[in-house]
C-alpha cells in the first residue's frame, strides 16, 4: 500500500533562516506529488505540485520542492523563512491514472515554528 512519511513532526527555525521539510513516499510508480500548508484555524492551501517535467518545482509564497526519484523524496524548501510561514505542512501523493486527484494520501504533517 502507498504511504507518505514526513519524518519531522516539529521544526523550529529562526526568521530569515533557510528551511527544508522532508517527505518520502512509498509507491509502486512515481505518483503525482503535492505540498499543502495549513495555517492555524484554516483549511489546507496548495503550495505546489509535481506531475512531470522539471524536477524542481516552484510554488507560491517563495516555496520550492525537488523531486528525487532515486530517493523517493519530494522535499520542500524556502531560502528565507518569514514569521507568517509558521503553520503545518502536509505532503501528499496521488496515483497516475484518471481521476488521480481523487486518491490523495497524506503524510502526518510537519508543524513549523518560527523564532523571531
Amino acid at each position, binding site marked *: 500500500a502507498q504511504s507518505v512519511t514526513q519524518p519531522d513532526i516539529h521544526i523550529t527555525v529562526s526568521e530569515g533562516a533557510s528551511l527544508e521539510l522532508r517527505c518520502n513516499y512509498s509507491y509502486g510508480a512515481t505518483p503525482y506529488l503535492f505540498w499543502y500548508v495549513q495555517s492555524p484555524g*484554516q483549511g489546507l492551501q496548495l503550495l505546489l505540485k509535481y506531475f512531470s517535467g522539471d524536477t524542481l518545482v516552484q510554488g507560491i509564497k517563495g516555496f520550492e520542492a525537488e523531486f528525487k526519484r532515486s530517493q523517493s523524496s519530494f522535499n520542500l524548501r524556502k531560502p528565507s523563512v518569514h514569521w507568517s510561514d509558521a503553520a503545518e505542512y*502536509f505532503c501528499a501523493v496521488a496515483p497516475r491514472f484518471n481521476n488521480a486527484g481523487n486518491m*490523495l494520501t*497524506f503524510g502526518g504533517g510537519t508543524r513549523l515554528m518560527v523564532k523571531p
Partner: protein
Amino acid sequence: DVKVTQSSRYLVKRTGEKVFLECVQDMDHENMFWYRQDPGLGLRLIYFSYDVKMKEKGDIPEGYSVSREKKERFSLILESASTNQTSMYLCASRGRADTQYFGPGTRLTVL
C-alpha cells in the same frame, strides 16, 4: 477563486446524537471529499463523491455516511456520534484538474 465553505467551524455534540456536517462549493466541481484530520495521522479520507447521488468509500468510512443531492453540496452524517469521532473534519472539492481545494474545517467534539 474556488470557495469551499463548511457550515460550522466548531460543533459540540453528545454521544449518540445524529450529526450533520455540511459542505458547499461554488465552482461547479464534480468531485467532493470528506476527510478527518487527527494529530500525527495527517488527513484520512472518509468518503468522496464524483457526481450527484454517487459516492465511494474512502479509507475510514465506518460510522459515517454521506449525501449528495445537489452538485454543490456534500453532507457528512454521523448516525450515532461517538467520542472517538471527536476530530477536525475537512471538506474538499476538485474539478477536472488534479488539485483538491479545501474548506476551513469543522472541529467536532463529542462528549
